[in-house]
């Protein structure tokens, strides 16, 4: 019976993706419990954008989103681009698994979000405090 085989294969792939997603969410939650007050400049919220020199979506998707965020928030938020290969200790501190990844740090140093994969400016903005 080929149809049950293919249904089983589909279920298997769905399960693998669901477990991967859950694992990623749990890992992000674990790293979000850390603080990063030492990285803040002038107590402003910070967006850390992890990339590598040859990361394609970092240039084509993430960088324009960061530019748009900076344009809208001006100097009320600091955006710091980080080469994850050149600064592995910083990448390891937030459990960065892929590039692009972004980490949003609030004005108090609390890690508000860790996004694996490209995040548009609206997604980043929703983690920034209202008063910003």
């Amino acid at each position: 019976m080929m149809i049950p085989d293919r249904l089983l294969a589909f279920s298997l792939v769905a399960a693998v993706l669901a477990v991967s997603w859950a694992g990623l969410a749990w890992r992000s939650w674990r790293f979000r419990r850390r603080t990063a007050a030492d990285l803040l400049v002038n107590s402003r919220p910070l967006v850390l954008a992890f990339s590598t020199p040859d990361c394609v979506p970092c240039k084509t998707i993430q960088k324009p989103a960061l530019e748009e965020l900076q344009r809208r928030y001006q100097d009320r938020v600091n955006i710091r681009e980080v080469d994850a290969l050149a600064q592995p200790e910083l990448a390891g501190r937030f459990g960065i698994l892929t590039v692009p990844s972004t980490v949003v740090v609030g004005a108090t140093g609390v890690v508000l979000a860790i996004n694996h994969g490209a995040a548009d400016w609206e997604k980043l903005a929703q983690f920034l405090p209202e008063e910003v």
Partner: protein
Amino acid sequence: MAVKVDHNAIKFNQVSLTIVAVVAALTNQPWLVAVLALILAASTARPQSGLFRVLYQRAALPLGLVRPHLVEDDPAPHRFAQGVGATFLGLSWIALAAGAPVLGWALDLLVAALAMANVALNFCAGCFVYYQLRRIGWIRGAAQAE
């Protein structure tokens, strides 16, 4: 190595790949998986001669279905991702031919799902693997290799 890469061509490639891979599974046609693996392998070896690239340039662009989106970047990760896709589809076809349909179709659908994750969710599975391999030093970047 900075060259102009058409990112809409890459998305066209991923959507086409997903359609063929899903159609192969729905209609139970393992030969389509083999053809898809060959297309991706050829495209990895010579990107300009890949079937989906040719379709993009000779059909999708002239018909105005999509417009080019040229970005200066390194094409190595794209070729790497295609190579990984070709390998998985090759393994999928081997599994199907060897009488392991669940594994075979699972690999086929996994490639389709990851291609769509890139298009729809901006999560690049190839980038994930490429980054991890570079991090542990198994792959050297273009900037380092020069």
